[in-house]
């Protein structure tokens, strides 16, 4: 129940002893300030981690093939495993519900020329889905589509760097680029915010690449993204299952680590998760420790206050104050001081983060800040902290015997 008179008593008591209240509040304010800043920095570090994994879809799985290292089912070790177009279909048939996007990929390098300008670039034969896996953004024109694949059309999509190198200010769309003697029509220009190396790439329909470079259906690697609804553990076990069934398909021993290799981003994600979790844990411990120091500080000062107010408490008791009213007056005073001081610390902390946040980017701290839920959590923590800090002194105060308190000094 809200007792206006009780609060009036408390505010009066705090007001009459400003220095004392300020001092006891200071430790708490400082503790919360430290906690907020630490937490903000941790958040910033986490943001940087997330960013470091780039804008490549972070649910990627890449599958490579190599030579077998063990004999299996009567087959010699050292046999070359070669993925083909049908393997993509196999994965789709077996694991369709777990796959978001999937592409086969052929990697070549090409010397490209246009009107006397020349350059060497990476050439990738891919399916249309590759755009989503690599998170490419179409700047002009379009990406490779299914029709290109079906018709083996001689079209390419070039990166921004390739366009800048070969075309200067000219618009590359519709122009023909010469790759190792064969002209291809440029249908699109893309950008990729992972930087120049990812923009010095030329994409081609995989069927065209296979037709013109060897006339076979060989595939260098298979790149897919798993269904984002899978959680980390599910994604990891999907990767394991996929490896197992591909090994069976190619009659590779399950213990053979070289013939078929699968890189699952979920593993990295898991490591980042563990890392950020331990970081959060460390910061929580530090923050908690500081907060406890603050509580002990307030508690200490409250004990001193009770000692100083012994006589007053004795008078109140002689006039008919119940032990409960004495407890509530000390406890609420403690809570009020802690809550207000804590809030000041929180505000200052958030202010500092806002102020210096942008300049911390070079220290791998991006967008440091605290969430609303943290602020609400901190408020509750502060009230609880104030209650803990005030409990012992309040108990002590309620046990004061008026006869002792009123004895003439």
């Amino acid at each position: 129940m809200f007792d206006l008179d009780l609060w009036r008593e408390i505010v009066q008591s705090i007001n009459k002893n400003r220095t004392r209240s300020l001092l006891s509040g200071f430790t708490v304010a400082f503790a919360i300030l430290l906690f907020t800043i630490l937490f903000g920095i941790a958040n910033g570090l986490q943001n940087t981690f997330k960013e470091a994994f780039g804008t490549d879809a972070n649910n990627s799985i890449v599958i490579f093939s190599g030579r077998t290292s063990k004999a299996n089912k009567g087959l010699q070790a050292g046999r070359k495993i070669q993925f083909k177009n049908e393997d993509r279909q196999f994965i789709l048939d077996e694991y369709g519900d777990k796959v978001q996007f999937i592409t086969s990929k052929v990697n070549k390098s090409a010397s490209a020329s246009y009107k006397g300008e020349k350059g060497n670039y990476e050439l990738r034969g891919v399916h249309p889905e590759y755009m989503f896996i690599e998170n490419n953004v179409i700047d002009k024109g379009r990406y490779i589509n299914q029709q290109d694949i079906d018709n083996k059309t001689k079209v390419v999509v070039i990166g921004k760097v390739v366009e800048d190198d070969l075309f200067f200010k000219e618009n590359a769309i519709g122009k023909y680029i010469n790759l190792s003697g064969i002209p291809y029509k440029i249908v699109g220009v893309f950008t990729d915010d992972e930087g120049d190396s990812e923009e010095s790439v030329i994409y081609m329909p995989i069927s065209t690449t296979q037709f013109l470079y060897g006339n076979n259906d060989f595939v260098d690697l298979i790149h897919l993204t798993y269904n984002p609804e899978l959680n980390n553990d599910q994604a990891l076990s999907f990767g394991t299952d996929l490896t197992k069934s591909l090994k069976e398909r190619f009659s590779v021993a399950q213990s053979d680590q070289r013939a078929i290799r699968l890189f699952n981003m979920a593993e990295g994600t898991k490591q980042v998760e563990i890392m950020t979790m331990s970081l959060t844990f460390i910061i929580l411990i530090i923050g908690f420790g500081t907060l406890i120091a603050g509580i002990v500080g307030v508690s200490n000062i409250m004990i001193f206050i009770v000692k100083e107010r012994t006589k007053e408490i004795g008078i109140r008791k002689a006039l008919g104050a119940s032990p409960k009213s004495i407890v509530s007056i000390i406890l609420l005073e403690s809570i009020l001081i802690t809550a207000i001081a804590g809030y000041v610390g929180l505000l200052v902390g958030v202010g500092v983060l806002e102020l210096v946040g942008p300049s911390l980017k070079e220290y791998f701290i991006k967008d440091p800040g605290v969430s609303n839920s943290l602020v609400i959590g901190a408020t509750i923590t502060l009230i609880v902290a104030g209650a803990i800090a005030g409990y012992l002194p309040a108990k002590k105060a309620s046990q004061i015997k008026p006869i002792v308190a009123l004895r003439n000094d």
Partner: protein
Amino acid sequence: MLEIHNLHKSYPIGESSLHVLKGIDLKVDQGEMVAIMGSSGSGKSTLLNIIGMLDEADSGEYILDGLPIKNLTEKKAAVYRNKFLGFIFQSFNLINYKNALENVALPLYYQGMKRKERNELAMFHLEKVGLANWAHHLPKELSGGQNQRVAIARALAANPKLLLADEPTGALDSKTSHEIMEFIQQLNDEGKTILMVTHEEDIANMCKRIVRLRDGVIVEDKFVEQVRLKQQYV
């Protein structure tokens, strides 16, 4: 009004204990004005503290207004103190950061009275002790005599049955002492029962009855011719 039978009290001092009250029998009627006298260590303050429920007796009977006072919880003692008793102390014991009005209103606050009501009542009592104009002054801005009058107003505020005064004039000069005593006499005239501890003979003679204590027993209990002081306040 107040009945005490065979009251004993001792305080532990290290291993042994000090027997302070060794069987006190006392009966005070409504409207009496009693001075409890004795040298220091005679047990007079202890007796007053027990009567004031600030301390508890080891054995014996204490009946206040027909109510046996025994084994009180702190909460109950607080309620009884608030309802039955008004305290006047030698060192006034006002709360130093509260002004005169707030000090007088404090017992009413603990009765759960509304702010407006209790301030009105407190003002009425301040007027009675002639300090209405000083209502918003802090204790440090008032003289000793004025502070004691604020304390008396506070003791009266809750309209107690019994007024307990522990050396009420101990910290005052003789002129102010007489003013305060005169006021207390006037309260007695209005029907308040007053119990006062003092070691000054002339102050005791301003009461109607003197109880002398020595070494924890009552050695003398007599009614005296009250020395009246001239009326000064209304």
